[in-house]
Each structure stands twice: as structure tokens, then as C-alpha cells.
């Protein structure tokens, strides 16, 4: 079972469940105070505005007791995917490196973007070719990826960048960067390949009924692996 963790103010939790079920996964919303079910075989930190973005986006949810349980499972290799506010929670809690902060134009950016697959050898990207250009929607005010120069070098050296914002031809340019992210980074891995966060919304580009959004999100959600939940 994939647990989609719901905080006060999460609002993409239902979308995530629907998208995962469409792909054949068993997924359930789990209220953060209830803890993780025993049969949790995957974890989604969904988008939204947990705790009204108080202090910093994701900062409050990152302190929720369920995060300790999530970290424990994460270290056992249970796949964890943070999307949008879930990415902010992931970085605030230290699951993934860097920080997501106010967009450079100080605007909420709600649009379709192109992403270049930077590392196709991860569970989240193995459905794509290295360097492939995919399209996903974004909807965020605080998506500018910031990281210290030192950690950025480590990130690049260890191939931890999943996606970069690019133009339709795969060129990583300033014009194609919707929020001023360092090095156009849109998504990164944690210490394990099974832990990933990204600002764009794969769950909003998974159901074929939403033709406009495309279905590139499916490949990312397939990162949860075998569809029969294995607890072993």
C-alpha cells in the first residue's frame, strides 16, 4: 500500500491517490497524526499548503511526528516521493538536499513546463531515456531551488539531479527556468535513489482523461515499483 500522507492544508492528496490507482497501485490517504500503516510499501508527500506555509513552506509539516516514521522507512528502502509542497517538506526535514524558496519573480507560477531527464538510472526516471524532454505542470510560489555551492558540487558529482527545467528542445536556459532555481534544478534525489522530490506535479499528468496535461507523470509514479505491495 502506498501511503499518501495528508497534513492540514495538503490539497493534492486525492489527485495522488487517483493517479496511483490508475496505474494499478493500492494507495490510501493517511492522516499524519495516525502514523504509517504497517503495510506501507511507498510514501507520497503530496502538494498543497501544509500549515498555511507558516514560517517557511514545509517547515511545520517537517516537524510532524510522522516524519520520524517516514525517515525510518526511507532508510529501509521504502520509496518516498515528495511533490511540490511535499518537496518543500522533504528538504525542510533533511530527506533531500537544498531548499525551495520564493520564486525569483515573486509570483505564483502556474503553467506547463518542460523538464530534461538528467539521470535516467533511478526508479523515478528509468521509464525515460537519458536527456529525454518531458512535460509536467507546476503550481508554486516557493519553488526556487537553493543550495550551497559546496553541496551543489556534491549533488552534480554524485548525479543526484533528476530533472532540470528546459525549453521544448531540451536546452537548459534561463528563459526556461520558471522560478530562478539554481542550475535549473526541478527535482533531486535524497541519499537513496528511492527518495526523490520535485516541484512539478506528476500526479496531475497521469490520468489520460486530462489530455491537456499529458501523461508524462506516469513514468515518475512507476518509481514505486512492483504494483503488488511487497512488505518484505
Amino acid at each position, binding site marked *: 500500500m502506498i501511503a499518501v500522507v495528508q497534513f492540514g492544508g495538503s490539497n493534492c492528496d486525492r489527485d495522488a491517490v487517483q493517479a496511483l490507482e490508475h496505474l494499478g497501485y493500492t494507495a490510501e490517504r493517511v492522516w499524519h497524526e495516525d502514523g504509517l500503516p504497517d503495510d506501507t510499501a511507498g510514501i507520497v508527500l503530496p502538494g498543497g499548503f501544509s500549515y498555511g506555509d507558516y*514560517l*517557511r513552506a514545509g*517547515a511545520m509539516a517537517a*516537524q510532524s511526528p510522522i516524519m520520524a516514521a517516514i525517515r525510518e522507512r526511507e532508510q529501509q528502502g521504502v520509496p518516498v516521493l515528495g511533490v511540490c509542497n511535499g518537496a518543500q517538506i522533504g*528538504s*525542510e526535514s533533511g530527506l533531500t538536499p*537544498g*531548499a525551495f*524558496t*520564493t*520564486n*525569483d*519573480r*515573486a509570483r505564483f507560477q502556474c503553467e506547463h513546463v518542460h523538464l530534461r531527464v538528467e539521470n535516467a538510472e533511478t526508479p523515478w526516471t528509468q521509464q525515460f531515456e537519458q536527456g529525454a524532454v518531458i512535460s509536467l505542470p507546476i503550481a508554486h510560489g516557493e519553488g*526556487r531551488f*537553493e*543550495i*550551497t555551492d559546496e*553541496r551543489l558540487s556534491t549533488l552534480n558529482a554524485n548525479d543526484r539531479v533528476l530533472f532540470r527545467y528546459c525549453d521544448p528542445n531540451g536546452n537548459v536556459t534561463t528563459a526556461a527556468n520558471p522560478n*530562478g532555481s539554481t542550475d535549473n534544478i526541478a527535482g533531486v534525489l535524497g541519499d537513496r535513489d528511492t527518495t526523490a522530490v520535485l516541484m512539478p506535479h506528476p500526479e496531475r499528468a497521469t490520468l489520460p482523461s486530462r489530455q491537456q496535461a499529458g501523461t508524462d507523470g506516469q513514468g515518475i509514479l512507476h518509481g514505486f515499483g512492483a504494483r503488488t505491495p511487497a512488505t518484505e
Partner: protein
Amino acid sequence: MTAYTATVTVRLKHGVLDPEAKTTQRALDRLGFELSALRSADQYEIDLEAPSTENAREQVTEMADRLLANPTIHDYEVQISER
């Protein structure tokens, strides 16, 4: 135990873009003010009891490290005064 008020000021690190400050500066420009720069910061006032100033500082520094500031983008300052 002594009663203290700690003031924590959290600022973006030098070199980290501050779009909110930039926007505010532009708005002041529009109002006709002349300024060369504007920086923003968050300030928290924390009342606490502690056995000493040093202990109060230690506690509040930990609060800043663990929650009030994000070390990737922020620097912070702690000031302690008796209340």
C-alpha cells in the same frame, strides 16, 4: 531561574536572492522614495526562563538551528536580555 527575552533575527545569507525585498523596494521607489537597497529579515521574540544567559542563548540557538532558520539559505543572530 531568570526570565529572559531572546530576540532571534533570521536573514537570508549574503548572495541569496530576496524577491520579496526587491518587490518592496520597487514599491517604495514607486511611492517616490529614494533608496539604494532594502533587505528584509524575520524577527522572533521568545520569552523563556533559564538558569543563566548562556543557557538561554544555547536553548534559543538550538531553536534557530532546528526550526526558525533554514541553514541552507539563512544566517541568524540571537540577542538575550533579562525580562
